[in-house]
């Protein structure tokens, strides 16, 4: 049982699923491809749970598989999970079936089989990204995720999606090619040191010259800052989320963008610890700008999907801030934040999608008084919104408080600026709710119906997760803490004052 290559299975299942979904013989309008796609996504989730069940929290990289892939380049097919990878893998595996259920009729007017197949392909590549322990393999799948994403944006969604897809791809590939240069640089450094190898374990042992290390760090960081996204490389985000279907946006913002912050932890800190500390002031500043700027711009939006997209800019600022605060609270907080943001934002996007489907518009100024006709929809939207703004008792609060502690720990004014992000979050969420949900219902809303069973099935698990991890985040912390500790040890930082760490413990529970 334990000899099974679990991680290979993990990405192979959705990839096979994508092919089967795309080519299964079907009558026009048949739901068969969609059912097949859903079954495969659930199978993937089952594999993910099986992996989690075998995972031993204290044991570093696990379930490793290493095979030579391209000998000439020192490239291995190497997979493994640690706490960080495991949490993101589980989040991905759980979100995809939810997205598929929520988007059941989204692509009916075009090609539902294609939508489901591309979504599964995206899941497959994303899972390899989170499990890769070879930089080249990581790069390959990092770029490969763009193809399904490009087709998902470009073929499904609202008018203007073609150019949104182009903009998305240009940004991402631009970052990717800069990353390529840095990845090649790693090869050269590794070859100069003896035998070229791309394995993370080998690369972490390299003694890279200070200047080279900084250049390579910059290359990696730019790519991840586009992916995450951070100010000022975020401009693709709002356009993409506005034009794409809400389901696609969930896949992009909640799963793919996590690759950016995942990469910062795994590669920037893991491979270039010295350069990461060297760059901290700049990165922290960028993170703060993203937090405040993202929130401010979000407040000014009239399009719900743009608004939700831009809130993520603010959230990714928080995650980055936590990573580069170099403390155990910050590290655990940002890992937790990645998961909680995935859950909370997915809920927001999907419910907003339901709303837009009903109203036929995504403009906040044209939606009002939904509460009266669709109380369940409005209520769930409120819960998801409150989670986003960090209400205690909902999961995002825990991660946000950890990040803020580390920010204050880093410097008091960094914490002070970051806190404004929370205040602004309250503004954009509550004001959005007030404008769209409360008040008298608009004329023509007589036919507005509340959520049906399929729509509920998709979002209820997300709500449960928000509440569960809000009150009981220990399992997540248990998984993420060892990873953060070993990472910080590698970087050579220890928490300055132990008393602060104690406070963090209290704050976390």
């Amino acid at each position, binding site marked *: 049982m334990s000899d099974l290559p679990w991680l290979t299975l993990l990405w192979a299942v959705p990839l096979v699923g994508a092919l089967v979904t795309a080519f299964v013989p079907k009558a026009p309008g048949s739901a068969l491809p969609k059912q097949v796609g859903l079954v495969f996504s659930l199978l993937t989730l089952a594999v993910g749970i099986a992996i989690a069940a075998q995972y031993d929290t204290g044991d570093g990289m696990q379930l490793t598989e290493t095979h030579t*892939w391209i000998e*000439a*380049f020192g490239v291995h097919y190497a997979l493994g999970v640690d706490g960080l990878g495991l949490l993101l893998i589980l989040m991905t595996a759980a979100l995809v079936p939810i997205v598929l259920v929520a988007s059941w009729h989204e692509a009916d007017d075009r090609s539902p089989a294609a939508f489901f197949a591309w979504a599964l392909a995206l899941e497959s590549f994303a899972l390899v990204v989170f499990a890769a322990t070879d930089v080249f393999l990581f790069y390959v799948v990092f770029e490969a995720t763009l193809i399904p994403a490009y087709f998902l944006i470009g073929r499904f969604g609202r008018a203007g999606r073609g150019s949104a897809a182009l903009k998305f791809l240009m940004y991402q*590939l631009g970052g990717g090619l800069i990353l390529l240069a840095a990845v090649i*640089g790693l090869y050269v450094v590794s070859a100069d040191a003896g035998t*070229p190898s791309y394995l993370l374990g080998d690369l972490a042992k390299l003694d890279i010259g200070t200047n080279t290390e900084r250049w390579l760090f910059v290359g990696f960081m730019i790519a991840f800052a586009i992916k995450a996204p951070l100010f000022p490389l975020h401009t693709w985000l709002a356009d993409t989320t506005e034009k794409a279907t809400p389901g696609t946006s969930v896949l992009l913002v909640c799963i793919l963008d996590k690759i950016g912050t995942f990469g910062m932890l795994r590669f920037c800190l893991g491979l270039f610890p010295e350069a990461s500390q060297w760059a901290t002031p700049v990165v922290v500043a960028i993170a703060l700008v993203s937090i405040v700027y993202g929130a401010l711009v979000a407040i000014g939006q009239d399009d719900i999907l743009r608004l939700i997209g831009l809130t993520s800019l603010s959230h990714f600022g928080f995650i980055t801030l936590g990573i580069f605060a170099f403390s155990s609270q910050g590290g655990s907080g940002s890992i937790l934040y990645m998961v909680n943001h995935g859950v909370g934002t997915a809920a927001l996007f999907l419910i907003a999608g339901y709303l837009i489907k009903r109203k036929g518009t995504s403009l906040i100024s044209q939606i009002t008084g939904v509460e009266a006709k669709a109380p369940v929809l409005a209520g769930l939207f409120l819960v998801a919104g409150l989670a986003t703004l960090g209400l205690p008792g909902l999961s995002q609060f825990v991660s946000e408080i950890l990040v803020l502690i580390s920010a204050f720990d880093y410097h008091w004014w960094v914490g002070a600026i970051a806190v404004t992000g929370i205040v602004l979050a309250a503004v954009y969420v509550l004001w959005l709710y007030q404008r769209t949900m409360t008040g008298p219902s608009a004329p023509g809303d007589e036919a507005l119906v509340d959520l049906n069973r399929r729509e509920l099935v998709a979002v209820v698990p997300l709500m449960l997760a928000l509440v569960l991890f809000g009150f009981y985040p220990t399992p997540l912390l248990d998984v993420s803490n060892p990873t953060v500790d070993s990472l910080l040890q590698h970087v050579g930082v220890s928490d300055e004052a132990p008393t602060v760490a104690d406070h963090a413990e209290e704050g976390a529970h």
Partner: protein
Amino acid sequence: MDFTKPTIEYADLWPLLVVFGVACAGVVVEAFVPRALRFIIQTALAVAGILVALAGTVIVARDLDVLGDGVARGAIDAEGTIAVDGPALFFWGILLVFALGGALLFAERRLEGGVSAFAGQAAALPGTEAERQASTRGLEHTEVYPLMMFALGGMMLFSAANDLLTLFVALEVLSLPLYLLCGLARRRRLLSQEAALKYFLLGAFSSAFFLYGVALVYGFSGAMGFAEINEAVRNDIGNQTLLLMGIGMISVGLLFKVGAAPFHSWTPDVYQGAPTPVTAFMAAGTKIAAFGAMLRIFYVAFGSDRWTWQPMLWIIAILTMLVGAVLAIVQTDMKRMLAYSSVAHTGFLLTGVLGVQAASELADGEVTSLQAVLFYLTTYGFSIIGAFAIVTLVRDAGGEATQFRSWRGLGRRSPLVAGLFAFFLLSMAGIPLTAGFVGKWAVFTVALAAGAWPVVIAAVLCSIIAVFFYVRVILLMFFDDDDVTAPGEVASVTKPSVLTSATILVGVAATLVLGVVPGPVLDLAANAGQFVR
């Protein structure tokens, strides 16, 4: 004076001789066989000749002499004029494979309703009664097969030539048939003839440069053979200026053939005007042969003088990538766009060429520049032939529809063909899991390892530009929602015979396999070893 019979190592050279022999036999067939039988005989002859030569290349490659602990394999044959070594045989192999694809495309007769893509009667002026008669009688030129075989032989010789005179002869043998082939399009004949004339004039001009350079280098070194020139460069005898001018002028000739800026201006016109099967064959073949010759002359003859030509190649490479990528953006014709993209690819290949390092500077198992360029040429050849083969399928009432506006929405009407084309474009753009990515990775790596980081940065920026115009075509085919275009303005896919389909499918399969498991071909390129001096 005694006349001594030159020694010719037939055992090593026979694949080359088979190709030339088949070409000559094709001429005889043309003279003596009745018209009705010529097509089938010529096609069979060409395909069989290529296959035999390919088998021969493999056989010769298997029992090459190993020199210097496996650093190089092969021998110098035919009185020092031809080097049959690992790299040369690799070039022969891929040239023959792509020539096979070219021959299959040449033989495609289903797309034009029973005739080939070549002019019925090249001598008939466009728009005259003679042309109409040739067309109604269903005439076609089967001379294209021997012409292609001659060009192929010239390409093989070009990449294996070991002295300057053989190199020049090979250059002409490969060029002259191509000039002719370019002017033989069945449709848009004026454009085709203009392309041929332009190619011929510029080609002749660049040949003159090349020849002048040969003379100057001879003047410097007193020898034609690459090894002797290298010896002279190493000993630094004589007039350095003569050598520099010679290197410069020979470079002009070679850079013209590969289509590097600022000698690229023939590429778009010729690629667009030539019959598409010829474009496919030429785009892959000429580039491979010319890079073969360039690598050999720079690495072997001028290898000791690296510091003088590397800076030149830096500038040329950056300029070529930039010109190719930027000008490709504004194109509205598929063939011209592919032509400019091929200019950009020349720049990427040059990035690999200038990444040469001495063996002592390389780590054990590190990628060498020769290996990288060989691999890149392989991947590029498969995707460019496949892409042009698909261009031949997309047609409207006036023949091939190469304008962008005709390709709008092709993804909905013919998802398979559009999908395959998109795949080729993604490979050329260098997206992972395609062969183009691995090739790009390899050439960038060797350049960076050699310290050419400004070139690599320029290459990365140009790749970003290049992504834009490739992806825009995908956008056009798949995401364009203007269904309201008038009928006739959009093109549709004509179902090809098995010949074109096979070429496309082999291209797709190779592009995918080389992208996912590039190891074997990379190892093959590594095993080819260095050039024999």
